[in-house]
């Protein structure tokens, strides 16, 4: 992801400029430290970022996905535990095996959570 894009991002969300800057610093610093992808729920990013507008946060994260810093995916959760990750909602099956409970469960939309994968810095497009 180029720095120019990051600057554009701050210009695009002037009301959240400071929070965007901090969030980016957090992600970029962590991306430099990790060897394997790190997973963040939307809720966790919301708490880290302090960006009050969920709409703005979604749009900011989308820009980071476009820039290659993050990857968005859908996690199926049952009783607050993740039991399957899927790149898009289309690929989520109607039923899934919950290995923790040893049962098949029917997936309903309320079991889907929004997640982002932070990639190690060397894997980012320059």
């Amino acid at each position, binding site marked *: 992801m180029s720095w120019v894009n990051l600057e554009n991002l701050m210009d695009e969300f002037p009301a959240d400029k400071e929070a965007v800057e901090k969030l980016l610093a957090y992600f970029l610093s962590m991306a430099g430290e990790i060897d394997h992808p790190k997973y963040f729920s939307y809720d966790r990013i919301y708490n880290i970022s302090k960006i009050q507008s*969920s709409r703005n946060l979604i*749009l900011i994260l989308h820009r980071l996905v476009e820039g290659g810093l993050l990857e968005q995916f859908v996690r199926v959760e049952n009783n607050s535990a993740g039991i399957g990750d899927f790149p898009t909602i289309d690929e989520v099956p109607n039923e899934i095996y919950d290995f923790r409970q040893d049962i098949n469960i029917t997936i309903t*939309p309320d079991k889907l959570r929004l997640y982002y994968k932070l990639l190690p810095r060397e894997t980012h497009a320059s």
Partner: protein
Amino acid sequence: MQASDIAQALLEDLPAIKEDKQLSFVKSKISAIEDADTKTLATAFLLVGMQLGGACVDRHIVLLVHGIRTRGIWQDLVASLLEKHSNVKPVIVGFGYFDLFCFWFPYFFRSTPIEKVEREIRGAMKDNKGAKVSVVAHSFGTYVISRILLSKPDIQLHRLLLCGAIINNNFSWDHLTCFPTGGVINDVGTQDTLPALARTVSWGYGNTGTFGFRTHRVKDRYFNFGHSDFFNTAQIEKYWVPFIVRGEIVESEWSYQRPTPSLWLSVLHLIPMKSIVLPALISSLAYGVYKIFV
């Protein structure tokens, strides 16, 4: 349609779908989106919206601003219909009873309601940081909003719905630095004579509620209505709620079927009533004073 609007529509449809069919429904709607970026974004809005209890976008504050000689009973009806949408919070704004003289007289009185409504908008923005703010305004309320848009460029509205508008025909929509991001609809009543009269008898008003703005920046939508005929449940649910909640413009058939306006209504503003009423009033007062003391 924007990704957030797609997600919002999905969230609103979801409760009516049987639980075991909901995922298939969601998947079919999301996979029907052709653009990959929009699909990713709509998924994000949808999933966050479900966590937030049905609102995929931020809170949407809708201020309802009434006209003159009314306490705006319609505001309660519109509020009750908007409240059904989880992310929408209607706010009823009143500026008290505004009589005909205050309406007519061009100085002193108009600033009070403008300041009151501006305070309400700022208060709503402060209390709901990050929320979008839209306005539904009727009659004199449309004039009030137009003055605020013109003089307070830091107030950014999302959507603006006008009815019974008396905003000046030459209002500079093009020059607004804070033009509502989600657009402006002007619901015109072709039987509404009050805006035409307002333009004729006083200063600063227009007959835009009778004839429309006829500009590319504002969508004029015509109905076979008088000044306050817009306020019924069917009308609000069919035409107002889709625009305010989703930005969807439902066309009115009357826009294409309406007859040519009557000649007298069209030329009413040419009659120099302003130049007659004010001198007449001053002359009457002077005569009254003269009769008392002489």
